[in-house]
């Protein structure tokens, strides 16, 4: 009888049992070093600024001013009908730029749909960066040339791509790091979870950078998560979580540089949460007054990333009126050029629709292309 064997028939030794842990269980990674600090890291306003390279600080300042201007210009372009839509990063420039500049040239950036500024800060031509949002094509640049993945609209879906790419690079022996950007809302998606887990299991050289800007369109963080912080999610994957003031560009740059370096050296992935704020509406099409009070925005203006750095540099004698003007002028030049180039209608060939669906055009698409060509010709004639 089968069940007999599963019960114990022998008399019990008195000393036989003590609470032993189950055999499979052993204390694994110590969770303590994975937990984020209790306060977001700040560098600006602390003595640590003194250790920063003044050239870097000036570069960051110039980029911040340029980024702020870029946001304003792109928003203006939506009003002129030159962009279909623009999700602004006004107020988030420190995060966008601090992150982008933490990468080496061989590293990859995986931006979300909001992160054109990070791409531009990496050196991508703003017109190419804005192609998606202008609407003449989906991706306006060669991702391999720039090592910038296509701007990703379905939230968090680019995170597993970053993991896969980083993993592939490591398998090939390249010391390439992938930086994947996502919003606070995006952390709720299953793809976020799966990506972080894969990264930790594979010890892939990838850094996940969450810009917690307080909202996912209209939904505030409190309706998005009950976690102590988003950075606390890291411990559940066995990777370190870091919390940083996303408006302190020096702190962002420092935390990400550390994480990138760690990843490059084989130390595995990191999750960084930057606390920041979306000053503008979700996009130009959104009306933020429907879901948040002006007062909240004002509080954050006082914590403006450009302002924080400008004060610090000025106080430390690293920036004067002249420097400010130079940065502003450079930004204005960029904006004028962008405006001018975006005011030209892009030259489009509708036949492109059929060119890249497959490596080789199928007979079916050839037929459909011929149909459109005939229609266009007829249209041309009738004009």
């Amino acid at each position, binding site marked *: 009888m089968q069940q007999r064997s599963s019960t114990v028939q022998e008399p019990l030794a008195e000393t036989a049992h003590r609470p032993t842990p189950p055999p499979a269980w052993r204390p694994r990674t110590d969770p303590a070093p994975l937990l984020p600090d209790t306060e977001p890291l700040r560098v600006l306003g602390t003595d640590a600024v003194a250790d920063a390279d003044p050239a870097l600080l000036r570069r960051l300042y110039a980029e911040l001013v340029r980024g702020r201007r870029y946001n304003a210009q792109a928003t203006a372009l939506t009003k002129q009908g030159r962009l*279909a*839509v623009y999700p602004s990063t006004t107020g988030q420039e420190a995060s966008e730029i601090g992150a982008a500049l933490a990468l080496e040239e061989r590293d990859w950036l995986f931006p979300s*749909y909001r992160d054109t500024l990070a791409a531009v800060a990496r050196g991508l031509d703003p017109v190419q960066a804005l192609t*998606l*949002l*202008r*609407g*003449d*094509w*989906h991706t306006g640049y060669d991702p391999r040339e720039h090592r910038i993945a296509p701007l990703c*609209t*379905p*939230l968090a879906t680019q995170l597993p791509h970053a993991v896969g790419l980083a993993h592939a690079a490591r398998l090939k022996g390249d010391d390439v790091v992938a930086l994947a950007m996502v919003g606070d*809302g*995006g952390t*709720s*998606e*299953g*793809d976020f979870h799966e990506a972080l887990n894969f990264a930790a299991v594979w010890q892939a050289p990838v850094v996940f950078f969450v810009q917690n800007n307080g909202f*996912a*369109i*209209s*939904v505030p963080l409190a*309706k*998005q*998560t009950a976690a102590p912080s988003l950075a606390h999610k890291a411990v559940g994957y066995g990777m370190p979580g870091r919390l940083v003031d996303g408006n302190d560009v020096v702190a962002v740059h420092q935390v990400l540089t550390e994480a990138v370096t760690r990843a490059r050296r084989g130390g595995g992935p990191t999750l960084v949460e930057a606390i920041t704020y979306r000053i503008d509406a979700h996009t130009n099409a*959104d009306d933020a007054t*429907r*879901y948040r009070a002006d007062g909240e925005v004002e509080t954050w203006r006082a914590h403006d990333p450009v302002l924080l750095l400008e004060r610090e540099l000025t106080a430390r004698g690293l920036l004067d009126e002249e420097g400010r003007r130079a940065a502003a002028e450079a930004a204005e030049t960029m904006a004028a050029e962008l405006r001018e180039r975006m005011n030209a209608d*892009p030259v*489009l060939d*509708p036949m*492109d*629709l*059929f060119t890249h*669906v497959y490596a080789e055009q199928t007979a*079916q*698409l050839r037929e*459909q292309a011929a149909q*459109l060509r005939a*229609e*266009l010709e007829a249209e041309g004639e009738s004009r």
Partner: protein
Amino acid sequence: MTTATTGAAAARAAGRAKPATMAQALQRAMRDAMAEDPTVHVMGEDVGTLGGVFRVTDGLAKEFGEDRCTDTPLAEAGILGAAVGMAMYGLRPVVEMQFDAFAYPAFEQLVSHVAKMRNRTRGAMPMPMVIRVPYGGGIGGVEHHSDSSEIYYMATPGLHVVTPATVEDAYGLLRAAIASDDPVVFLEPKRLYWSKSDWSPEAPARVEPLGRAVVRRPGTSATLLTYGPSLPVCLEAAEAATAEGWDLEVVDLRSLVPFDDETVAASVRRTGRAVVVHESGGFAGPGAEIAARVSERCFHHLEAPVLRVAGFDLPYPPPMLERHHLPGVDRVLDAVARLQWEAGN
């Protein structure tokens, strides 16, 4: 769009009419359903405080409270999965997926649970639920915002697939969908959200039965079979066709599942020719099923093969090129011209 209904006409006569948009009609349908039935719960991303990115749920959270109209975390599988659990406990969730392409993360929940739950429990556990999906293009949206995903739902037994093309139907069909004891994927043609009609939110409103197509324009030469965003295109084409001497019948399918073979076959048998028109890609698209079943059922009445006018078989184009993709009046007329008029009657 220029269809008239008796309800609206009556309301207009009573001096109460104010033109309404499809978005408003949808909102009113949810409002009325929520007021009548406390088990109706609206949920999704930004549906509460904001009232939805298309404002279709505007005011519901305010009127019924956040427990009845809930801003969820940003996770579509989680939203639909939670809705499954709510339906298990007797609620009637009305879920909004923000855009067509953003419903894909919930695909597994939809196919493996929503569609199958009634069947796998021998009817013990029905899934009365509406999944509202704004779909289709024509609004200048960037990639992933303009997909026509109806075939994925049509091919999944257990789901109803419904799509309104008029303001009146938006109200009537959504009410019926919410009242249905089966899950309904309710496809809202986003470029018709702002279409207006004499239908008035104040007018007495009609619940439309599910599963019935309707003849929007009677005609004798050929039948245009269409739905949702392509109905206005077909009606316009039918008007234009009169100049060529064609009197086209236009059938608005409204319900893709179940399919109203009766209305469709009756029309095609009468006219002897048919063109299916939709925005979705043609290959393995909704028109494939429609053309195949019409050919099966009306074979000996057909003077010409059933033709399909559809979007091209490619990822939805970027905003600046979408007009080349979308089937317009000319493409419909071209297809009508190819119906082998020389051959028959």
